[in-house]
């Protein structure tokens, strides 16, 4: 405990020699800093300008800056313990700004904070609290990185991190020690030790990932504006991220901001299943490219610095970008790299070519004759959209051609009929272009977006409902590049609005359903009770958040509202915005066999392990992936139903 009367002690007088020495050291340090920082700044500023970047509206930028930088919200939220430790280091740095200025001013005899005066004294005490927290925090972080060694920080130990940790500790320790130092020489020595640590720290910042101290506030502030914002191509020679000359200022800024924390990789479905893709390494690969070759180079980005194979293992789930604490936007980078490979024909992949050829010649991504969709509409007696109805029910490729997708559409149509909704389906539909958009084929995407926008305008479509979050996203956001899309919502959003009109079957005895499952000897042994005749079992439902509905659209509660009408909700360990991808996104559902573990199997196992009787989905792709995964295990599997199917169960009698 500090004695109550202790004040911060600093040398009262510096000799001319000391002043000169300090000036010389400070200038040297500043020169060393600028020498390297100038190069990084030059590379960022000389990269291509970002097409479609708008500084305004500025409100969201300021809010994100305050929340993510000043409050360290993302840093803390995703990894609470380490996050708080880091937050205190950051806040200590902020508080220390004045202290440091005062420290340097003191050398020249013009200190402005008086430790004896009330304000000065109060400030120094506050700084001391932060210094203590920072010192504890930095020791904790050091122990974590060097002794506990979490996987996501990488295999190699980072000696520069150790050095930085040591310097920060010295800075805080020398500051705190100055409260108890009493002799002149000790006070002076502490001052000089603090100064040396400071000047060394300053000079090495631009050489290490601690560059983020300067860059990341800008990176967060200068984000593209929204999640997974894919920039437009600019001009006839722009095919995406092919070579250094295509790297833009934002991409370069983001590459230099990476702190190598590994949070992106920690939640990546590809990285978690033994694939080559590692989002952190993608960003660091770009940084290495910029360091070696700079932004004007015509050397390909894919090859030495990043592998094409890795880039095409991305499901575009967005877990990486969603939680990056320094504001790196991985999705536009990954999709940009894909564009560079696909738009130039450099990507050679049998399944990819098959998908592109199917869409070059036909109307849907599955390569099925449109006559099949016509037959489905006829069989289900779905009303045709004639411009007078309120909603256009968009089937999508899965809803129109996939057997399970069709079941979901059929059940949703039953619900809409029950609710008396005015809707119709289009006579002809073309794929929204989602898979080719995520795979980077701008030729096909432009064709489909323009064709669809024209067709919807001609058919006077004002509002669209669809069962597929990929369609929702592509229609609402990606089509904007080519026109003004109509309003679109996901069927969970629609159903949630009418939840009070839908039948509630929760609380109903699920035992008959259980019998079917338990008879094979596996699920829920606790419900078997020899004493009671037939105990009521409530159906447990686990809802899997689709990437394109959750992280992409921020819709988490609406589908749960619907599922809760049918049973008791349980959550998977990774849920809401931490939901783990089913593996189908990014066009990957159309590509061939994956290497390593199958993403869908990993997630399905996680959902089954919750002990739920039913897995609820809200995306036909998730549904398809889990159906496949559940079928391949020999364990008796839970039911797999879309939320529309859950809600429609209560309509049995209708």
């Amino acid at each position: 405990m500090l004695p109550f009367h202790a004040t911060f002690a600093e040398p009262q007088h510096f000799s001319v020699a000391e002043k000169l020495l300090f000036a010389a050291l400070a200038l040297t340090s500043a020169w060393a800093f600028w020498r390297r920082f100038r190069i990084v700044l030059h590379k960022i500023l000389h990269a291509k300008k970002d097409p479609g970047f708008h500084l305004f509206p500025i409100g969201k930028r300021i809010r994100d800056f305050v929340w993510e930088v000043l409050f360290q919200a993302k840093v803390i939220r995703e990894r609470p313990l380490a996050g708080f430790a880091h937050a205190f280091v950051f806040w200590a740095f902020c508080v220390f700004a004045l202290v440091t200025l005062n420290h340097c001013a003191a050398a020249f005899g013009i200190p402005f904070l008086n430790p004896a005066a009330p304000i000065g004294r109060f400030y120094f005490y506050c700084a001391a609290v932060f210094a203590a927290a920072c010192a504890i925090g930095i020791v904790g972080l050091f122990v974590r990185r060097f002794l506990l060694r979490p996987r996501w920080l990488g295999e190699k130990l980072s000696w520069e991190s150790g050095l930085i940790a040591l310097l920060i500790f010295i800075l805080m320790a020398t500051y705190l020690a100055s409260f108890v130092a009493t002799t002149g020489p000790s006070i002076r020595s502490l001052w000089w030790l603090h100064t040396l640590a400071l000047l060394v720290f300053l000079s090495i910042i631009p050489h290490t990932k601690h560059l983020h101290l300067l860059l990341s506030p800008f990176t967060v502030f200068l984000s593209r504006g929204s999640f997974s914002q894919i920039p437009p191509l600019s001009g006839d020679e722009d095919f995406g991220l092919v070579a250094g000359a295509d790297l833009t200022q934002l991409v370069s800024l983001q590459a230099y901001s990476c702190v190598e924390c590994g949070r992106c990789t920690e939640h990546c479905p590809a990285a978690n299943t033994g694939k080559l893709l590692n989002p952190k390494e993608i960003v660091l690969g770009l940084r290495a490219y910029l360091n070696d070759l700079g932004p004007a180079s015509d050397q390909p980005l894919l090859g030495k610095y990043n592998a094409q194979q890795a880039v095409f293992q991305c499901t575009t789930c967005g877990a990486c970008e969603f939680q990056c604490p320094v504001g790196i936007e991985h999705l536009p980078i990954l999709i940009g790299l894909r564009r560079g490979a696909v738009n130039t024909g450099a990507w050679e992949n049998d399944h990819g070519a098959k998908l592109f050829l199917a869409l070059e010649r036909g109307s849907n991504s599955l390569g099925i004759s449109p006559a099949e969709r016509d037959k489905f509409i006829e069989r289900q007696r779905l009303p045709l959209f004639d411009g007078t109805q309120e909603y256009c029910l968009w089937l999508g490729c899965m809803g129109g051609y996939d057997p399970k997708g069709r079941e979901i559409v059929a059940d949703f149509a039953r619900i809409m009929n029950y609710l008396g909704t005015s809707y119709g389906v289009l006579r002809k539909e073309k794929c929204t272009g989602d898979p080719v958009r995520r795979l980077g084929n701008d030729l096909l995407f432009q064709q489909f977006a323009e064709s669809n926008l024209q067709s919807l305008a001609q058919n006077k479509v004002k509002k669209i409902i669809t069962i597929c979050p990929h369609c929702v996203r592509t229609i609402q956001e990606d089509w904007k590049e080519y026109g003004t899309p109509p309003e679109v919502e996901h069927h969970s959003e629609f159903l949630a609005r009418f939840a009070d009109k839908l039948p509630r079957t929760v609380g109903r005895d699920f035992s008959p359903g259980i019998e079917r499952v338990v008879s094979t000897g596996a699920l829920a042994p606790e419900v078997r009770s020899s004493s009671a005749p037939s105990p009521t079992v409530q159906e447990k439902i686990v809802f899997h958040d689709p990437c394109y509905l959750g992280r992409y659209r921020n819709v988490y509660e609406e589908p749960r509202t619907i599922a809760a009408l049918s049973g008791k909700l349980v959550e998977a360990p990774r849920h809401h915005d931490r939901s783990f991808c089913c593996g189908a996104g990014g066009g990957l559902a159309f590509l061939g066999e994956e290497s390593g573990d199958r993403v869908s199997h990993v997630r399905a196992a996680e959902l089954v392990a919750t002990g739920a009787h039913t897995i609820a989905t809200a995306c036909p792709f998730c549904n398809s992936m889990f159906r496949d995964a559940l079928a391949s295990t020999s364990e008796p599997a839970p039911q797999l139903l879309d939320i529309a199917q859950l809600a429609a169960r209560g309509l049995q009698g209708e």
Partner: protein
Amino acid sequence: MKILVVIKQVPERDAPVRIDPSGKAIDDSDLQYAMNEPDAYALEEALQLKEKSAAANDEVIVLSAGPERVGTTLRDALAKGADRGIHILSDGLGSLDALGVATLLAAAIKQESPDLILTGLQSEDLGLGQTGVIVAELLGLPHATLILHVEKIKTGPNGTTIEAKRELEEGWFQTIELPTPAVLTIQSGGTKLRYATLMGIKRARIKEVKQISAADLAPTSTPVVLLQHIGLPKKQKSTQMLTGTPKEAAAVLVEKLRTEAHVL
């Protein structure tokens, strides 16, 4: 090597086909068009030959005949990598027979004197399988059909010969040696088709497509094959099981084909 690929623009595979009230043509009012798939394989073969060849001045030319809309398919071919295109403008191809079309094509090809002529085995709409063969005959060139690949190109003192792999039935293949110039009709599925790229389309804009009027090439000939009628097959299902020894069953079959089915 100068390779010329003859391609046809046909209605999209899944197009709803309606017969014109006259019964002599397909109603093309609602149709979308695409490149005939066997011709796409022929184009792919030509592009691969060019890519594999050591020579720097290989050229792939695409040729097609038809109305204005055929230009789109020619541009698609250029986008995939062909160097230039020739479009025989004609609105009346529907009234010509295979010989008539082949005459026009042969006249245009003669002006180019290519070393190798590739075309698809047959078209997806009429499926005659004759046009390539007739073109060869009109040009006095050797030809081979049902080809999967050109396997070898041998340059010798007497000129260049090629070895082509031909697909037969039951998993059998045949290798045929031909002198050049020659005509090959290409079977689908022998290789992987490449997809059209944005870069390809942008580059295609500056590539040349020469338009020639059909009248300038050859006088309109009178068809030797006349189309009488187009109709949908009548749905009729009737199964008769013939019993007895093969000899007895065959005799009964011949009788039925003669008297019931009226095909003999």
